[in-house]
């Protein structure tokens, strides 16, 4: 494979100077692509994402010789990337217009398909038992479904969900960053989780009887 055209110059030259890990441009390019996807999902800004990825990658490659293998390097590089993303999110203070975060009518509409007027599950929406959720983690296909479900979340829900679960910011930090009240944040996370679990259940955990 020739990755030369997409690999940033500085990474390529850093990569060429040392171990086989770094000389493995196929690996590096695939790593870069995964990081970019991860960062873009969270920052919803291609340029910011590209910057964060390059910085994280360069930072990690500087120490690449100390890593025993691909898996160790990946874990490290994603840890750096997560910190970069957290920094960027903190800098982007209050760029979400709070009024666009919660549209009450939409909210009600959403809930009414899940719950009846008394607030109990609609019969066809009641969550089922997921058989062996931990096994899904080993299935490549599952992660594609997971990404699709994430992408199906409304943008702002996806963003706070990822700040909470991927970047692991606490409620207070998220609220300060995006200018939300705690209770609005809880509402958004609740909605995001309701949607995400429904999507995963429908598309994976209880999707028919056919083996995947």
């Amino acid at each position, binding site marked *: 494979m020739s990755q030369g055209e997409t690999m940033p110059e500085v990474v390529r030259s850093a990569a060429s100077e040392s171990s086989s890990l770094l000389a493995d441009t196929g690996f590096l390019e695939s790593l870069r692509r995964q990081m970019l996807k991860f960062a873009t999902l969270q920052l919803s800004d291609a340029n910011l994402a590209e910057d964060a990825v390059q910085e994280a990658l360069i930072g990690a490659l500087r120490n690449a010789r100390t890593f025993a293998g691909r898996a160790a390097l990946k874990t490290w590089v994603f840890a750096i990337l997560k910190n970069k993303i957290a920094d960027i999110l903190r800098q982007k203070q209050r760029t979400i217009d709070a009024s666009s975060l919660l549209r009450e009518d939409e909210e009600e509409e959403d809930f009414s398909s899940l719950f009846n007027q008394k607030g109990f599950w609609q019969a066809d929406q009641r*969550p089922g038992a997921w058989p062996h*959720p931990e096994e899904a983690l080993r299935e490549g296909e599952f*992660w594609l479904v997971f990404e699709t479900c994430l992408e199906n979340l409304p943008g702002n829900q996806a963003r706070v969900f990822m700040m909470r679960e991927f970047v692991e910011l606490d409620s207070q930090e998220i609220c300060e960053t995006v200018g939300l009240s705690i209770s609005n944040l809880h509402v958004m996370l609740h909605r995001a989780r309701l949607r995400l679990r429904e999507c995963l259940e429908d598309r994976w955990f209880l999707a028919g009887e056919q083996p995947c």
Partner: protein
Amino acid sequence: MLNCREVTRLLSESQERTLGLSERLSLKVHVLICSGCRNFGKQMDALRQITRAYVKGANERQDKPDD
């Protein structure tokens, strides 16, 4: 008594904060009789496990394991 909508909200919030005693008791009573919310609660834990795995190791998925 809480309804399912309120119960799922508390179950979601328990991922962000420690629930109070009366909240926990209300949840406990509700999930005894409601399989939907019981499953929802387990799925909140599964969801967290999934997101952690996604960040940490899921990125292995496009590659062969290390030699």
